[in-house]
Structure formats: structure tokens, C-alpha cells
């Protein structure tokens, strides 16, 4: 069994609290991605699972065992580091063989297993080289091979793709996902790249300032964010935020800001409160009619299949819309705009928490 459970993990470094009470159940065989900006505590959390750091309080369980005080080597983990951490003085073969030799496997089985694993990740032709002579992608594969060779129950990965160039990174995402499917092991992956999290994860754990903000499948995180931080962290370009006031008079509610006024069905009578409306660029529609608001195109960013349109709509900043590339638009055009009503979200402006779900 290789489920991982975190129970109230807190980690302080001197006066700073890097992790502030993280509790999480990770199922056996799950691909979980921790994502968040630098310094959000995701790497510290991973190191605590690995045993490289010990938590100030809280417990780590792997399978049925409480491993909080266990040495890293007793936890049956494999880890791929951001720097890959290949041993520069050893050949690729010896790097992959390292964990087997430490465990004193017989020499014949070492050679056999190293070759088998090298074939899986396609590094057989590199076995005699030193890590210093490898390209980024090759080094990446070798690091994976070295981790896979001992068949750990849980794989930990700390931004392993960050040193690769963009194209290779996208390819490796696919490969990692395939690898996960074929190994059936639990993967715990840390990244600051929301695209990596979206594409690979079974479940995403969004962290910010040492706390878990939301846990869920990628599409839930994207479409149903728990708070303004999560909403803003996922999606490129980011979600549009419009600050305004929400009032309810019994049979309907009204969102009102200097530039935008929206009437919403249902809802209860509430006293006016400060809220932030969030809408993703793909849910902003441009119209020729003057229903809804009016805006002026001030910038166009063609992506090929779609075009990003930056609009002056009378509020702070620009409103970004994602439209079909075929749309004939030019800077200076006046258009009406509407939002897809079922995809609008509201946040409390002071707390940032999602309201009116």
C-alpha cells in the first residue's frame, strides 16, 4: 500500500512559518500535483514527505505506517530533484545502478535491471557517458531511470522539468503521464507551472502562503475556484476581475460597478456588500448590439487559433476576451460585451472567498 496521508503538517524555520497546517489524503496510485507560487510551502511539504525535513508538528503516513520519524531511506520513496542531482563522477550506468548497489543487489541482477530500465526511458545508448555530457532531456531521462529502477511505491518530483526548454517540457509531461499509467505508483509532483499541474494531475493541490487553498481535479480547480487566489493562479491569460457592489431586493440581485451592471436571477435579499466578479476571457462575448456594456478594442494578441482582445470598458485595467481568430476586429473598434452567465463567479472583496456558489 502506498497511500500518503498528511496530518496537520506545520513547519517553521525560525520565525517564518513555511507550512501552516496541511492535511491531505493521497490515494494509492494517484497523480497529485502541488502547485503555487515560489515560497508557498510546496517544496517544504514535499521534503517533509521525503523525510529530508522534519515537520515542526503534524504527522506523515505512508501506507499504514506513521513515518514522521523515519529516515528517508526507510520510506520506500523515489525522488527526482529540480537539479536532477545526477552524480557527476559516475557514468549513466553507475548512476542508475547506484541505488541497487547501495541495497547490495547481486551484480548480475544490477546489470540486467539497469539495462531494462534504460530501455524503458530510452537511454541505453548513453550508459557509458558522464552526466556532464548529456543534454537537458537526456539528463532528465537518466534521473527518471535512476528513480524507477528500485520500483518505489511513491514518486516525489520537485519541479523536475524546470530546466528543460519549452518544447521538451511539453513532451516530457506526456511521457510522465504515460509512465505514471504504466507504473501504477503514487506520484507527488511539485511545480509552480499551472499548465503542468492542469495537464498531468489527477488532483491538484493549490498552495499559497503555507496553506492549502483548494484540492480537486484540474477542471474543478479551473471552473470552480474556491477563492480569488486560485481563480487568478490558473488560466492564461488570467481571469478578469471587476470590483463592484452586490445588492439583493428579494426577486433578483444586481451587481453594479462603474462600468458593468448585471442583473442576476434568484438570490435572497441582502444588504449591499463589496464583491469582485470573476470571468474568464473565453467567457466574455463581443456583440454588435449594445446589450450589456460597451467597450473599445485597445490591443489585439493573435494566438493563431484564437485572438486575445484587450478592451477599455470603463473600469480599472483592461477586460480581456478570447475570441475566434476569424473575427474581423481592429484596434479602436467599439463593441458591446456580455458574460456567459453560468460561468461568472463572485468573491468577497475583503476575504477573497468565493460567494454565491
Amino acid at each position, binding site marked *: 500500500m502506498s497511500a500518503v496521508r498528511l496530518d496537520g503538517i506545520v513547519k517553521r524555520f525560525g520565525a517564518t512559518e513555511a507550512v501552516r497546517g496541511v492535511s491531505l489524503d493521497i490515494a494509492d496510485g494517484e497523480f497529485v500535483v502541488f502547485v503555487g507560487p515560489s515560497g508557498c510551502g510546496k517544496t517544504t511539504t514535499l521534503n517533509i514527505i*521525503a*523525510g*529530508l525535513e522534519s515537520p515542526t508538528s503534524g504527522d506523515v503516513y505512508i501506507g499504514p505506517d506513521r513515518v514522521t520519524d523515519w*529516515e*528517508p*531511506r526507510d520510506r520506500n*520513496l*523515489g*525522488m527526482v*530533484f*529540480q*537539479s536532477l*542531482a545526477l*552524480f*557527476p*563522477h559516475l557514468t549513466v550506468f553507475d548512476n542508475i545502478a*547506484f*541505488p541497487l548497489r*547501495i*541495497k547490495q543487489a547481486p551484480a548480475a541482477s544490477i546489470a540486467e535491471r539497469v539495462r531494462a530500465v534504460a530501455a524503458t526511458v530510452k537511454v541505453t545508448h548513453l550508459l557509458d557517458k558522464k*552526466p*556532464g555530457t548529456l543534454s537537458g532531456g537526456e539528463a532528465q531521462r537518466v534521473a527518471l531511470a*535512476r528513480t524507477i529502477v*528500485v520500483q518505489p511505491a511513491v514518486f516525489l518530483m520537485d519541479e523536475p522539468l524546470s530546466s528543460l526548454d519549452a518544447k521538451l517540457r511539453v513532451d516530457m509531461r506526456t511521457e510522465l503521464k504515460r509512465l505514471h499509467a504504466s507504473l501504477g505508483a503514487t506520484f507527488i509532483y511539485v511545480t509552480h507551472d499551472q499548465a503542468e499541474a492542469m495537464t498531468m494531475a489527477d488532483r491538484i493541490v493549490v498552495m499559497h502562503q503555507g496553506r492549502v487553498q483548494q484540492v480537486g481535479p484540474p477542471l474543478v480547480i479551473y471552473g470552480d475556484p474556491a477563492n480569488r487566489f486560485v481563480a487568478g493562479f490558473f488560466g492564461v491569460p488570467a481571469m478578469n476581475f471587476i470590483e463592484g457592489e452586490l445588492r439583493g431586493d428579494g426577486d433578483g440581485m444586481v451587481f453594479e460597478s462603474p462600468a458593468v451592471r448585471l442583473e442576476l436571477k434568484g438570490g435572497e435579499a441582502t444588504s449591499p456588500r463589496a464583491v469582485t466578479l470573476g470571468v474568464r476571457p473565453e467567457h466574455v462575448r463581443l456583440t454588435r448590439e449594445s446589450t450589456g456594456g460597451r467597450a473599445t478594442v485597445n490591443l489585439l494578441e493573435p494566438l493563431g487559433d484564437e485572438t486575445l482582445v484587450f478592451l477599455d470598458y470603463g473600469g480599472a485595467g483592461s477586460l480581456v476576451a478570447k475570441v475566434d481568430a476569424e473575427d474581423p476586429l481592429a484596434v479602436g473598434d467599439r463593441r458591446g460585451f456580455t458574460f456567459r452567465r453560468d460561468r461568472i463567479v463572485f468573491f468577497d472583496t475583503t476575504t477573497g472567498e468565493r460567494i454565491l456558489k
Partner: protein
Amino acid sequence: MIRRRHVFAIVRHALLLAWTLVVLFPIGWMVMTSFKDAGDWVSWPARWVPFVDFEPTLMNYRQIFHFGDTGALRREQTEQAYNIWKATFDSVVIVTVASVVSLLLGSTLAYAISRFRTGGPNYPYTVLTIRMLPPIVVAIPLLIYYASLPEAFTWLLGRRVEFFDTYYGLTLLYIVTTLPYVIWMMLAFIDEVPRELEHAARLMGASRLATIRKVVFPLVASGMAVTLLFVFILNWSEFLLALTLSQPKVLTLPVLLNKFQSAVEGRLYGPQAAIGTVVTIPVVVLGFLIQKHLVKGFSFGMIRR
């Protein structure tokens, strides 16, 4: 522009050549003297060219190595019969053991300081201040301790343990005096080893010691070679402590070198030059052997990631 660069190159090389001559002259003179017969050691004007100004002879080497015809200057005429074979053996054993032990101890200590901040942030400087004390200050106090320790051991263990004029007495001293250098040099190298490499090794099942042995030390091998050479030379040429705390039973080469004088003829420059030449050879050979590491080791920050 090109011409100007040529001029610079010529000037630079001329200066370097001149400096090389300044550095090598005494060594060359020593080697030459070691092949001169007694009459030519201090003759004026100096005799420069072998076979023309003077007839090279192996006389001095015969004397120090005690073989063949030792000529007019017989062993019995020197104050005592000094055997370079014995002194070489003593030097090699003491210096090698002391240097290797010091390297291993110092490297592990440096690891502890680097990774666990053992002794607090100022500890490396504290270690260094120990070396700022001139040896002459500690030589006599050490002599007193070396003389009285056997009594202390007799009282404590009921067994006499000698330190003065013993192999381990001098070896121990050389380990202690070179340890601060080893710690300092190795600290610089070990600080360079990325911690993630150790984390990786530990996750793969390696214990701390295995990690040090299989990952850290191989990566700082060049640094260790440089440090070993440095410490070896220090110990190899150490004179004061050896003079004070050893001999006549244990006698290292620098002390022997100083003893080569005759009551009749004063300083025996020829045999001394021969010993000097012999003493220089291991250092040069060692330097060549680890030359590859020297280049790497002296350019700190050599670890390719």
C-alpha cells in the same frame, strides 16, 4: 594592434623567465653543489660549468647513502654516523601516516562543519587562530608535556607510554598541527558539493557514511589531492618540532640535514646539498603525479552539475 600584443607577450614572457631563474637558481645551485667535491663547495670565483670548471663526483651521495668509496671524509670523522636511509624511513612513515590521517580526519570534520554548522558559525575561524600561534611558542611547553606524560600514564594506567622521541609522538603532533589547514581547505571544497546530491543518495538508501564515501569524497577528490600534497610538504619540511621533540632515536630528514657538519671541517655543504636534493625529489614527483588534480583543485568550484 597585433604588434602591440606581441610586445606585451614578449615583455610578459621575459619577466616570467627572469622570475623563473630567480626561483630556480638556489635549487640549481644546490643540485650542482651536491655533485661537487669538497674543495669546490665554496671556492671563489664560483665554479659554474660541470666538466669544465669542476669534475662532478658522487662522493657526497656515497657518503649520505653510505655506499662505495666515501673518500677522504670518512663517516667516523663526522660527529656521529648519520644514516640517511634510517632518516628517510622515519620521515616517510611519520609524514605519510600523519598526512593521510590528518586528511581523513580534517575532511570529515570539514563535512560536519559544512553540513551541520558544528561548533557554531565562527568555529572555522577559531580553528584557524590555533595556527596563528608560532610553533616556537608551543615547542617548549609541548616538550614539558611530552616529558611528563609518561609519568601521568604510569599513574593512570599503570603503564608507561612514551611520547618524546617516538614515531607516534611526532605523528600525533603533525596530525594536530596540520588539521586546521585540512579543515579550511576541505571546507571550501565540500561547501561546493550540492546538497541535493546527498539528498538523492540518502533517499536511495545510502547512510550518511555511505553518502560521504560514495558521493561527497569522490567529488572532492581533486581537492583532497591538493590538500594532501600541501600537508605532506608542510610535514616533510617541518624542523622545529622534530628537533625539539624527537631524536636521536627518531630522526627526520630536515633534522638530519642540519646535523651534517664535521668538527674538523665545519659545515659539510656537499652532503647537505645531496640530502637537500634527495629531500626535494619526492615533493616534485608527488606534484607531477597529481598534477591533473592540482589544476582542478586549485580552481575552486570545479564540480560540474
